[in-house]
């Protein structure tokens, strides 16, 4: 057997500081959301919707000097236009922070295909599409359902449970670990990786590099384990995959593994948690859904619309006038699908949760070529998690509304969610 020497050297990500642009880190209370927005301040995490609604009316494309400069469109129309315009907006970084990767990292980016631009994007995406179809992910459904019931069994004897930490969190972690072929007991570490990458945006650069390094070290160890013991999972699939007649480069393999691990976890965790939070606060919706389980598919889409967990980012490619604002090359765009999903110009009763909404062209999974690759997996996990919960726990309320905490940054959902079970 020949030795696969792609993975014998250190990856650039795990080594010293990468090239790119760093800017001053600015934190602290926001003076005016139209000119100084920050998605990392606690006011935004606690309740971004009134801020977005206000901006949509008075300044639909807000600006900030933080993060080296960026824009926040809040109208559906503008969010959609940017998502579709891959000519003028690059995905070479999709996490808005204080570091911009060098331009020459495009069109591949650090974690293909989410970080890729055309023309490379479609090739990297095509490799992954077949393993994330609705049919392919349905194979994970029985194990997902069994896990949900196991988690609920563990609530026995407790009046109050943390639905974010003791339920929602475990579901995507266990599913993605199984798909990637990682040890199920490593799940708790993944939460740390997610927090490091998505929430540690304003940490000093050295600390950020060190934390990202830990993730890549872990992934590389998994690659080596799979090289020694190949198996039927996504990691072995990526190691063996070919593009343009060649095996993938090591940083492509590991970058995609990082993407699959990170992107699937706190997103779905957030969607499950937000749905349960809504049902705990709204007894009429909860009772109706328990009485009419056939309504769940529509209700789920409405939770995804109203509490869309994911905001993406783009980088402006060149200086330009865009929809009345003066964008500069390398300005960030904070691409808020949650804001788009609550635009009254696109949705009737946009600010309300209507669990039997029939017309629901929401953008929770994005629009255009970067449509969330894992959307079928996320929908399966969300459906199974809610079905299992509602079939076992009919009555539940927020134990203490003030104790609910929300994640910071681009992925929003409850991280502490104490529910009283009856």
């Amino acid at each position, binding site marked *: 057997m020949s030795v696969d020497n792609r993975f014998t050297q250190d990856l650039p990500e795990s080594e010293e500081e990468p090239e790119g642009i760093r800017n001053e880190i600015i934190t602290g209370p926001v003076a005016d959301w139209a000119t100084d927005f920050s998605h990392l301040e606690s006011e935004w995490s606690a309740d971004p919707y009134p801020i977005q609604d206000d901006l949509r009316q008075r300044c639909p494309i807000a600006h900030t000097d933080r993060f080296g400069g960026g824009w926040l469109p809040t109208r559906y129309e503008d969010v959609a236009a940017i998502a579709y315009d891959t000519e003028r907006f690059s995905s070479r970084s999709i996490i808005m922070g204080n570091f911009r990767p060098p331009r020459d990292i495009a069109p591949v980016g650090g974690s293909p295909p989410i970080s890729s631009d055309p023309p490379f994007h479609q090739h990297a995406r*095509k490799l992954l*599409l*077949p393993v*994330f*179809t*609705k*049919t392919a992910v349905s194979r994970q459904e029985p194990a997902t359902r069994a896990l949900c019931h196991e988690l609920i069994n563990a609530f026995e004897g407790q009046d109050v449970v943390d639905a974010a930490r003791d339920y929602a969190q475990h579901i995507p972690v266990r599913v993605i670990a199984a798909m990637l072929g990682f040890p199920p007991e490593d799940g708790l570490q993944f939460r740390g990786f997610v927090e490091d990458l998505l929430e540690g945006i304003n940490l000093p650069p050295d600390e950020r590099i060190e934390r990202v390094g830990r993730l890549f070290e872990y992934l590389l160890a998994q690659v080596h384990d799979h090289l020694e013991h190949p198996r039927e999972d996504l990691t072995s699939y990526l190691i063996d995959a070919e593009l343009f007649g060649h095996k993938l480069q090591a940083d492509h393999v590991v970058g995609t593994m990082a993407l699959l691990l990170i992107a699937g976890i706190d997103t779905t965790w957030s969607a499950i948690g937000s749905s349960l939070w809504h049902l705990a606060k709204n007894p009429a919706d909860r009772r109706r859904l328990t009485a009419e389980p056939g309504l769940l*598919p529509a209700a789920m*889409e409405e939770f995804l619309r109203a509490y869309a967990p994911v905001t993406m980012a783009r980088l402006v490619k060149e200086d330009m006038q865009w929809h009345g604002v003066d964008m500069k090359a390398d300005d960030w765009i904070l691409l808020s699908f949650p804001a788009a999903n609550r635009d009254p110009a696109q949705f009737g009763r946009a600010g309300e949760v209507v669990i039997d909404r*029939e*017309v*629901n*062209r*929401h*953008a929770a*999974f994005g*629009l*255009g*070529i970067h*449509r969330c690759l894992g*959307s*079928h997996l996320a*929908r399966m996990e969300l459906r199974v998690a809610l079905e299992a919960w509602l079939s076992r726990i009919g009555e539940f309320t927020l134990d203490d509304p003030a104790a609910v905490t929300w994640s910071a940054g681009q992925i929003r959902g409850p991280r502490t969610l104490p529910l009283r079970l009856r």
Partner: protein
Amino acid sequence: MKVQIDPERCQGHGRCYDLAPGLFGDDEEGYGQVLGDGTVSPDQEREARLAVVNCPEHAIEVT
């Protein structure tokens, strides 16, 4: 009445085959596909309409 998918617009969200499984299926990459010749029987008209109004990419046409 007939349904059609514009393959240039479809991104594989799968709303059509979720909401109207009698009219749409998925291909091996998850993109929507019209089953048969796309003819919608009168009792499938509601399904067809739901698929049209829920496609985030506006990729489904009814003729």
